[in-house]
């Protein structure tokens, strides 16, 4: 199918983008989730505001990471900065679609599209990421955009020395949406365990800090999801992620 007609506006800056948005418009970033929906006419905005030309950078300053919303997923994947300092993001982004969709798809698009199967959100949550919005607001945790608000950047704090992380996913076929995934970050005095679509597993994190085995902690993470097979997947993936991150 072909999309319904729409009006197209290029935004050169975040201010322009905010100004161009009205009640019946959509933001076009990488388009890898939006355009399939438009091609099926499941989404039919009257106006499309293209922000993909607004520069987005991967930056490190005083140890902290800042990723512009329009940074392509492929840029995350190949970034030496990220591979060195936040390898979890690199592991996670390799599960997002395929090389050609990662070359266009943006990290901001993934976060704001908010598909419960979005691997990047899972990894960002484990990394305690903070979302910077066009309104100047910064959000920690689940992102809810207000009217006329846009996600402009994501800030990820520096990891402690000797931090280890792992991202483990199960999908039916290579590159398809994951049925389950788990992101784990272990630092000397912090443990983070995020479950795809379900957020942080606080009890599992506490158990890890208290010295529980990977298997026991994993069982607690599984409590975040419904369905016995889904629970089994989350438990097993959490256990593997913990082991991969060095927790026995």
């Amino acid at each position, binding site marked *: 199918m072909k*999309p319904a007609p729409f009006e197209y506006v290029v935004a050169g800056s975040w201010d322009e983008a905010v100004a161009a948005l009205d009640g*019946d418009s959509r933001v076009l970033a990488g388009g890898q*989730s939006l355009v399939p929906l438009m091609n099926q006419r499941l*989404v039919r905005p009257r106006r499309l505001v293209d922000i993909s030309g607004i520069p987005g950078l991967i930056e490190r300053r005083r140890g902290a990471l800042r990723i512009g919303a329009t940074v*392509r997923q492929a840029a995350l994947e190949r970034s030496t900065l990220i591979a060195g300092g936040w390898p979890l993001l690199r592991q996670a982004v390799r599960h997002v679609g395929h090389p*050609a969709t990662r*070359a266009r798809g943006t990290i901001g698009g993934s976060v*704001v599209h908010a598909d419960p199967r979005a691997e990047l959100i899972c990894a960002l949550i484990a990394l305690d990421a903070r979302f910077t919005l066009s309104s100047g607001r910064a959000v920690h945790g689940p992102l809810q955009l207000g009217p006329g608000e846009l996600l402009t950047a994501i800030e990820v704090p520096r990891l402690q020395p000797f931090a280890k992380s792992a991202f483990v996913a199960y999908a039916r076929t290579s*590159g398809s949406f994951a049925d389950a995934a788990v992101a784990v970050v272990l630092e000397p005095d912090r443990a983070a365990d995020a479950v795809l679509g379900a957020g942080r597993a606080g009890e599992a994190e506490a158990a890890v800090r208290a010295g529980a085995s990977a298997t026991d902690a994993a069982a607690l993470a599984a409590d975040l999801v419904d369905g016995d097979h889904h629970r089994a997947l989350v438990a097993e993936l959490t256990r593997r992620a913990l082991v991969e991150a060095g927790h026995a």
Partner: protein
Amino acid sequence: MSGWGDTPPDLDRPGFGTPPASADAPRTTTRISVRVNGTQRHAEVEPRTLLSDFLRHDLGLTGTKVGCETGSCGACTVQLDGEPARACLTFAIQVHEADITTIEGLPHGPLHAAFHEHHALQCGFCTAGMLMTLDAFLKTNPEPTEDEVKHALSGNLCRCTGYAPIVKAVLER
């Protein structure tokens, strides 16, 4: 709600019976200029014209194939400013001033020869997308392992070959 904040629609819903919006946007065209396979091309496009349709029907470059229009099959993969991209998930209007390479502009090389040698194509419908994906992949990863090749190829569906000859062609090119 405007912007990116909307809840994604139910992906399981069949794509029909969608009631048209009360009033669709007016249909306008815009002039774009784009370099395709080294040649500067100019055209009038509607915003909704997909890059895949633009290449195939406006420019007559039919080597790029369309298999799904949801970005799932990879048949329409081209290189946009040197990076692999799904032509069915890009609007032609977005590539104004860009540099595009399609299968017609990909010089014949060892990869083509290996595809021929190893019988890595049958109907040939997915082949352009395969080659465009692999060319981009091999630029930065010229000596991949078998698993890396499979991972790089997993976004390009083929129903004929069973992939094994394609993987072999890449490894033994």
